[in-house]
């Protein structure tokens, strides 16, 4: 079926004959993390990421992508690879250190349980 779109008809016949080698990795550029400050006095908040060839372009694209409508007084972009993060799995890092069970015998109540679980697992796999 011939296209209903005049722009597409203008691109023919090349449109149908074009063969594109697969994209190379990083062809869509490295990633940047985007932060938006919604009002003066507020914190800049992480809103997402995008791909850009350099920091200046990252800012231009961040404005298009993350500040099209919503209120925004400032935008920050940071190369993703420049960010060091803690894993959410380590969230107990941020618990207040009032728990002193590590210096009490009661702090070691589940040692046995762990060993038994391990044994069960060994048994289960040896049955396979």
């Amino acid at each position, binding site marked *: 079926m011939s296209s*209903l779109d005049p722009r597409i008809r203008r691109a023919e016949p*090349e449109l149908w004959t074009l063969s594109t080698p697969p*994209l190379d*990795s990083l*062809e*869509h550029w490295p990633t940047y993390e985007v932060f938006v400050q919604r009002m003066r006095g507020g914190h800049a908040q992480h809103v997402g990421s*995008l791909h850009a060839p350099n920091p200046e372009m990252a800012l231009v694209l961040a404005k298009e992508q993350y500040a099209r409508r919503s209120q925004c007084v400032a935008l920050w972009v940071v190369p993703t690879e420049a960010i060091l*993060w803690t894993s959410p*799995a380590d969230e107990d890092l941020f618990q207040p250190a009032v728990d002193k069970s590590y210096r009490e015998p009661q702090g070691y109540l589940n040692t046995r349980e762990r060993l038994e679980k391990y044994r069960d*697992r060994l048994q289960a796999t040896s049955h396979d």
Partner: protein
Amino acid sequence: MYGNLVIRPEDIENWGKKVHEEDPEKLAEFEARIERGEKIEPQDWMPFEYRRQLIRLIEQHAHSEIIGALPEGTWITRAPTFRRKLALMAKVQDEVGHAQLLYSAAETLGKPREAMINDLLSGKSKYSNVFNYPAKTWADTAIIAWLVDAGAIINQTTNSKGSYGPYVRALERICWEESFHLKYGYDSVVYLATGTPKQRALLQDALNRWWRPIMHFFGPPDNLSVHTEKLVKWKVKLATNDEMRQQFLDMYVPKIWELGLTIPDPNLRKNPETGRWEYSDPNWDEFWQVINGNGPCNKERIAVRRFAEEKGRWVRRALLESQARYVTPLA
């Protein structure tokens, strides 16, 4: 915009086996976290199948947004007024922006963007079937912006209660923007419905063309769908195809009738006893035909996407290597 995640039998082959290979303690912890309503973040441990199915889901969704911009985009140059042209440009820009947000969310699971685009162009990845139909007249764009976006909103609002943090955050933002699409679409439809006999006929024709693809939008009926208990438990799939289709019919059929339009299905009615909508078989065979590449526009959609990637290549390279300069040899 987006149709529902289509799961075929081959997609979950050996599935149970793989889940059983996971570390049982970690799996229990992971499932308990989801059960408590907490979100999973990219750096968290997750089962292999959770990652794989989410990549498929979010990637299909992203492709649907970027391809979904094409049928409407066709009409930007021919919009009937300047205000409509501005609104349509804003909507199409939003849809492409949705694709960007979703590709980024899928990338947090470890699949690079280039790989996703390659899979789209090779036909390995799918996108919503509804975008393989042409927008023949301006009225088609009105029907799309109202009813296809309405379907997308139901689907996306449902998915936004899911368990994966980056996807949920992207969806919250997307749903917020979709509300403009819906209002714009409804306004365009009402304008034609209250216009001249010719405008009304144009609208009725468009509705006739789009009704079947819209009925296909939420995917095959539940009794023909693959069982997905695990995906439900992991909050990857939050409502069945029929549940969402019923919700859509409940919300929009009365609004369509209110405009004096005829829905091209003589059997469509709400059964007062069951409280559920009944309708003719929308030809699921056609649905599978289109998914497998044989719809009216599949080839054009992919060709246009390939054209854009290929013709944009030199621009992307030039920007990436903007420091590279030709230097005249000294001697």
